[in-house]
C-alpha cells in the first residue's frame, strides 16, 4: 500500500457525520498527528491544511472505503487499524487523544462512500483496479448510436441488444466465481474458443442480470458438449434449436417462471438466459441464418426458449431423472421445435388422458412416421393433478404413452420405418412411434387449463444427431 504513515481519514461533505467530525480532524492536525485527509466531493472540505482531492475516488477505491468517515492508522506502509464511522471511544483509542470529540455524540454510523455508489465499483475497478479483458475493444464514435451500431455489426438476433461496455461486462463477470479466461468449449460452426468472458459479453447483450450468468454458462457448456451436436442442430434444415430447462433451487433464486405463460414472454430470466445461449452461437460460433444455419423455417424459439420446471409436484424433476439431487441446480438443453397444444377436458382417468396425449403425439413429424423425433411433453398442472390423484408416477405415464404409440405397420403409408416408403415386412408388426427414452415429461404451466404442451425436437436424435445434455450450475 503506497500511503503515508500516520492517520488517513476519508470524508465527503455530503455526509453529516463527516461534517460533524471536521473539528475532530482539526484537533488531530493541531495536535501534530500525521494526518492525511481524502475528500470525495469537495476539495475545500474539511478546513485543514492536508486535504487531498479524491473526486476521482482513486484513493477511496484502493483503500477499500465503504463508509465515510473512515479513519485508518498506517505504520510501516501497512494498515494497522481502521475505524468506520464516528465512534468516539475508538477514535480516542486509535489516536491516543483522550479528550477527542468529547462534545460529540458517542456514535454516528456515517454515510456510504461514493466509491461504492451504484455503478461505481465497476468503473473504479476498470480504471484503477487493473481489470483486464481478452476481448477486442471496439471504439464506437460519439456520433454513432451504440445500439444501432450493434445491429450494424451483425451481433443482433433482430431485436435490440444491450451494448457490451466494459463496465457492464465487468459487472456480468462478477455474477460467477469462475475466471473469465476459462474455456467452455468450441462454438460451432467456426469452432471458435468460447471463454466465460465471451459468454458474459453475449449475456450482457441479451439483457441478463449478473446472477443469471452461471445459468448461461451451464447452458453453453451443455450446448457445446459433443453429445448435444450443436453444429448439426444449427446447420439442419429442420425447425429445431436448443431449448433450455432449469431445475433446482436457482430457479427461485433468480426469479424464473414455471407458472402461467411459462413458454411465453414476460419473465426476464427465462427470456434472456435462452437468448444469451442463442447469441453465443450466433456471435462466438458465427452461426447465422441463411449461412451455416440452413433451417427452412426455424421457429420462434430461436430467439429464446428457456423455462423452469415446476418441482412442487410428486414427480421427479428432469434433472433428478439425470441423476442430480433436488438440492442441486442444473440446466438441460434439448433440441426443440415449436409447441403443439393438447387439450383434454373430458378425461377423468389417467388411462384416458394418456390415450389423448398419445393420439396427439402420433402426428409428430408426420402421422405415418415412426422412430420419430424425441419429444418433451410439458404436463400442465390440471393434467398433472389427474395423474397425481391416481398415484401415477412419471415413469408409469411414459410407459403408458409408449404403449399407446405403437403404430400398426399397415398404417405407415407414405413414410415407412426408415422413412423410405412402404416396408412390406412391417405391415403386420407394431412399430414404436418413439425410440426408447424418446419421451420426456416435465411439469410446468399456469393453474387453469386442462392442457399439455407437446414439443418435438430434431429428427436426428441419439448418436446420429443430438441427445439432451444436463450440466450442473456452478456459481
Amino acid at each position, binding site marked *: 500500500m503506497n500511503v503515508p504513515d500516520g492517520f488517513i481519514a476519508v470524508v465527503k461533505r455530503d455526509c453529516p457525520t463527516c461534517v460533524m467530525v471536521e473539528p475532530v480532524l482539526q484537533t488531530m492536525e493541531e495536535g501534530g498527528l500525521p494526518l492525511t485527509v481524502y475528500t470525495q466531493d469537495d476539495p475545500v472540505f474539511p478546513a485543514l491544511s492536508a486535504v487531498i482531492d479524491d473526486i476521482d475516488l482513486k484513493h477511496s477505491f484502493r483503500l477499500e472505503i465503504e463508509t465515510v468517515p473512515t479513519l485508518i492508522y498506517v505504520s510501516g506502509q501497512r494498515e494497522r487499524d481502521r475505524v468506520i464511522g464516528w465512534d468516539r471511544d475508538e477514535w480516542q483509542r486509535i489516536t491516543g487523544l483522550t479528550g477527542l470529540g468529547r462534545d460529540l455524540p458517542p456514535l454516528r454510523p456515517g454515510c456510504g462512500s461514493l466509491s461504492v455508489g451504484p455503478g461505481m465499483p465497476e468503473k473504479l475497478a476498470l480504471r484503477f483496479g487493473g481489470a483486464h*479483458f481478452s476481448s*477486442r*475493444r471496439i471504439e464506437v464514435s*460519439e456520433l454513432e448510436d451504440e445500439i444501432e451500431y450493434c445491429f450494424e455489426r451483425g451481433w443482433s438476433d433482430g431485436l435490440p441488444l444491450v451494448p457490451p*461496455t466494459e463496465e457492464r461486462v465487468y459487472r456480468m463477470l462478477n455474477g460467477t466465481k469462475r475466471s473469465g479466461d476459462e474455456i467452455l468449449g468450441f462454438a460451432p460452426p467456426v469452432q471458435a474458443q468460447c471463454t466465460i468472458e465471451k459468454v458474459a459479453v453475449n449475456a450482457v447483450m441479451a439483457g441478463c442480470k449478473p446472477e443469471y450468468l452461471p445459468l448461461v454458462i451451464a447452458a453453453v457448456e451443455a450446448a457445446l458438449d459433443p453429445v448435444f451436436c450443436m453444429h448439426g442442430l444449427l446447420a439442419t434444415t429442420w425447425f429445431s434449436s436448443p431449448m433450455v430447462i432449469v431445475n433446482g433451487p436457482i430457479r427461485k433464486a433468480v426469479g424464473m417462471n414455471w407458472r402461467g405463460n411459462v413458454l411465453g414472454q414476460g419473465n426476464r430470466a427465462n427470456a434472456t438466459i435462452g437468448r444469451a445461449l442463442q*447469441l453465443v452461437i450466433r*456471435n*462466438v460460433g*458465427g452461426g447465422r441464418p441463411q449461412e451455416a444455419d440452413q433451417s427452412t423455417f426455424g421457429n420462434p424459439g430461436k430467439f429464446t426458449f428457456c423455462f423452469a420446471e415446476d418441482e412442487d409436484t410428486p414427480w421427479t424433476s428432469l434433472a433428478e431423472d439425470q441423476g442430480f439431487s433436488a438440492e442441486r441446480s442444473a440446466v438441460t438443453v434439448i433440441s426443440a421445435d415449436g409447441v403443439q397444444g393438447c387439450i383434454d377436458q373430458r378425461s377423468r382417468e389417467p388411462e384416458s388422458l394418456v390415450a389423448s396425449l398419445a393420439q396427439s403425439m402420433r402426428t409428430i413429424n408426420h402421422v405415418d412416421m415412426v422412430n420419430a423425433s424425441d419429444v418433451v411433453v410439458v404436463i400442465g398442472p390440471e393434467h398433472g393433478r389427474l395423474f397425481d390423484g391416481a398415484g401415477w408416477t412419471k415413469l408409469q405415464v411414459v410407459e403408458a404413452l409408449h404403449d399407446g404409440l405403437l403404430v400398426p405397420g399397415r398404417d405407415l403409408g407414405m413414410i415407412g420405418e426408415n422413412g423410405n416408403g412402404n416396408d412390406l415386412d412391417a405391415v403386420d408388426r407394431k412399430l414404436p412411434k418413439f425410440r426408447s427414452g424418446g419421451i420426456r415429461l416435465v411439469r410446468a404451466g399456469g393453474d387453469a387449463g386442462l392442457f399439455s404442451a407437446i414439443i418435438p425436437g430434431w429428427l436426428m436424435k441419439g448418436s446420429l444427431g443430438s441427445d439432451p445434455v444436463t450440466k450442473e450450475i456452478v456459481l
Partner: protein
Amino acid sequence: MTQILLDPSGELDPPQREPLPIPSTLDGLTIALLDISKTKGDVFLDRVDMHLQEEGLRVLRFKKPTFARTAPVELLQKIAQQCDVVIEGLAD
C-alpha cells in the same frame, strides 16, 4: 466521448467489416451513378455515363437532395433494388 464495446464474436474475422468484394466484370450488371448534388458533379457523371453506355452497360442515374446530409432511405433502397454496383461522385 468515444464508447468502448467488447467484441462478442469469436474474433476470427477482422475487427472492421470488409466491404463487399468488387466484381471482376461489369458485364450484365446494372450500374448506379449517384450524384451527391455537388456543383458540376453532374458534368463529371454525364461523361462517365457516356463512357459506360459506349461499353454497352446499363446505367441508372440517381441524385441525393443535398450533399450535406446522408442519402434518404428511400433513395438507398431504390438503388439497392435496381442496381448491382454504385459509382458515387464524391467531393469537389
